């Protein structure tokens, strides 16, 4: 805001002149907090990941070569792949490599991991954004539509429908969609993978079923939150004030309902964005889409430690960054957060 003298945050009780309180470093403070939190969390995650991927399954060389290989062969294999040495050394060298972009060479594909993972990530991001673009308007629309009819039979039916949708795993949604759109009305292709790189519209068409599947997987909770938000906003005392003031229609909705109803959904939207961008293993596998999730499944099955480690770290990083973006959006949108202590 302006250069007001900064005093304590929060409303003051009791009488007195309007001493104005401003905390105008709200956003910077929050970013600073997260800038420390995110690497700290990632560090913890990295230890966990390293332990789970390289330590628990046993010796990587032994796993790769099988039980009949000799100890010497295992040792040689490990050395060749940079997997020999003490645990701490291996962890540190892996961590160092991760930070500098040297993510090793894939055991399965034989290629450098970094371009492989990042390429797949790009595909997942595309699919995720497409799904996001469907999800958000759909969910908010359904939620607001329900709120208008609160308590009616259509509202209750929609709630049951949404809840059923939410409980079903994505691959089931995907199969059902496939049955409708690829079998009964054969409009869309079954496998999306082949269409990658063949041009904008064919690719879009091929990505539609997976994107819709993803969107439907997330729509329920968001719609419900929107509905609750709108219902609470229209039942609130400030809404009453606005109506009795004489306000109606678009202005009433925009200024007094929309913002207040949607603020609670921001965190959820942020979390969902993070999840969508990171790629969904299930949906990508079902539709044969070459994304990061599908890659990770293969890596798990084939015990490719390098891809797994890099892929999990990347996914984690994306989720945490989505959290950061959410926090920033909060401070911009909700004045109460801006002007009070802490984050």
């Amino acid at each position, binding site marked *: *805001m*302006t250069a*007001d003298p900064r005093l*304590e945050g*929060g*409303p*003051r*009780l*009791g*009488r*007195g*002149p*309007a001493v*104005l*309180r401003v905390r105008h470093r709200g956003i910077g403070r929050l970013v600073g907090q997260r800038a420390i939190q995110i690497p700290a969390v990632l560090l913890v995650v990295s230890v966990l990941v390293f332990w789970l991927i390289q330590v628990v399954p046993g010796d990587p060389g032994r796993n790769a070569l099988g039980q009949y290989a000799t100890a010497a062969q295992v040792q040689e294999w490990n050395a060749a792949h940079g997997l020999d040495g003490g645990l701490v050394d291996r962890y540190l060298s892996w961590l160092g490599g991760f930070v500098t972009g040297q993510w090793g060479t894939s055991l399965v594909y034989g290629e450098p991991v970094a371009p492989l993972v990042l390429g797949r990530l790009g595909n997942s991001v595309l699919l995720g954004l497409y799904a996001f673009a469907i999800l958000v308007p759909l969910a908010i629309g359904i939620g607001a539509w329900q709120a208008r009819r609160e308590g009616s039979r259509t509202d209750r039916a929609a709630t049951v429908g949404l809840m059923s949708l939410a409980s079903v795993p994505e691959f089931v949604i995907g199969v059902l969609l496939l049955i409708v759109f690829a079998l009964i009305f054969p409009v869309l292709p079954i496998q999306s993978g082949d269409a990658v790189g063949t041009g904008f519209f064919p690719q879009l068409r091929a990505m539609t079923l997976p994107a819709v599947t993803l969107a439907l997987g997330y729509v329920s909770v968001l719609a419900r939150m929107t509905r609750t938000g709108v219902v609470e906003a229209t039942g*609130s*005392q*400030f809404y*009453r*004030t*606005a*109506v*009795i*003031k*004489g*306000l*109606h229609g678009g*202005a009433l909705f925009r*200024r*007094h309902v929309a*913002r*207040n109803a949607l*603020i609670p959904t921001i965190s959820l939207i942020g979390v969902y964005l993070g999840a969508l961008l990171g790629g969904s293993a299930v949906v990508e596998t079902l539709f044969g889409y070459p994304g990061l999730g599908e890659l990770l499944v293969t890596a798990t099955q084939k015990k490719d430690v390098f891809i797994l480690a890099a892929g999990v770290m990347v996914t984690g990083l994306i989720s945490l960054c989505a959290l950061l973006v959410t926090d920033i959006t909060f401070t911009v*949108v*909700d*004045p*109460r957060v801006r*002007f*009070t202590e802490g984050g």
Partner: protein
Amino acid sequence: MTGLVSVRGLTIDHRVDGGFRTAVQGVDLDIAEGEAHGLVGESGSGKSTIALALTRYLPKGARVHAGQLRVAGRDVLTLDAASLRRYRRDDVGVVYQEPSRALNPTASVGAQVAEAHRLRGLPRPAAREATHDSLAEVGLPDPERLAARYPHELSGGQQQRVMIAMALAARPRLLILDEPTTGLDSQVQAEVLALIGRLQQRLGFASLLISHDLPLVAAHSDRVGVLEHGRLLETTSSARLVAEPAHEYTRRLVSAIPAFDGAVREPVDAAAPPLLVGTGLRKHYQGHVALDGVDLRIGRGETLGIVGESGSGKTTLGRVMAGLTAYDGEIVLDAPVVPPPVQIVFQSPDASLNPRRTVRQTLRRAIELLHGDGTPEELVARTGLPVDALDKLPHQLSGGQKQRVAIARAFAGRSPLIVCDEPTSALDVTVQATVIDLLIDLQRRTGVSYLFISHDLAVVRRISHRVAVMQHGRLVETAPASDIFGAARHPYTQSLVAAARHGRRDLPADAVAN
């Protein structure tokens, strides 16, 4: 009858699951132009429902009928949508009970007031000007800067002034005030009501003041109506209401008000060894000092009243006494440490009882923990509860009964000191008096001491032997009750007492039963 407001036979039923509940029954209301009219009723009397009905804003499924409901020449019940909007915009303004909830938290205060001006037809720049004028008119300083603030940045009194500015923006002919000062500090209350009085003089609107606080309504209205369970019992001039209440219920209301003139308890023997001595008590939360070096003494069988505005530290003091909060300083209590020598009676009877325990279970556990030697039956009898209350759950009891259970619980052992933290603030006025009587009676019989914390000076005056006044975490003055309320020395005490008196028309001595 062609007054500004003319209502005949107003009946409103709320839809409750399964059927209907009558909230308002056959109410007649007349308000002349420029008149200050009041409506008094306890909780559940239907007063807020009437206010909303005048603006035709009622819950879904509510049924309204009236022989007549005319305001400013319009038949409110038959207006179409557009006319209803015009009516709400131009003829009526409303000020609500909790301004922090009645203002949009995500819009600036200026934007919300400007909205009212824009609805009148003013273009943006003119509306902004008008907003600054409105804010200045209600006594808010620095209107340009304040307009950019958000509601949560303002104090309760400031928020209420904004509401008033917003309600008066279109110069309505009727201003409805629904419990406008409940929850505000007494001095702020007085200021807000004085402001409304001044504006009414200047602008000439009629007002409908609704509250449970009879002296408050009587002091600020020309005529007052009394509501009980949705029925209007009587309507007379405010002076006549207080001096010669016609209806039995009104008489009860009037006599239940703790008067500022009436017997005050004499202090106990100061020479006797005290029960508790506190020295240099300090407590601070991050960056905020709650207690700033408090010294006090409580004698045996004595009630020490603690008064102060919110933020003065009185609640913190109570918690410190009860051993619930760490503190700096020293407290010497002349009693064994086990069982806990200090008990508390809280403000909200709803929250202070475990909703899943029957009264008997709660009391039995208390007797065990406090090494009492009575039975739940005896406790219940001592606090004036019927025996069948023992096997009830809290939600089956009334507010007053729940509070009696809380008091019984505090008396389950032989704790020499009981902290009472606003124990009557959440109760209806008629119930408050009986609870205070119970506390005084128990004190006479058991010799227990009370630390009685309240913002309601009249109640404190009734029960305390000595009174301590707190401000900003410090004790400003400590003296016998008669001194504090008669000839206080510290200017802050004087202003507190004056504001409390000013907010209510002092009841003439013969109107008070006590």
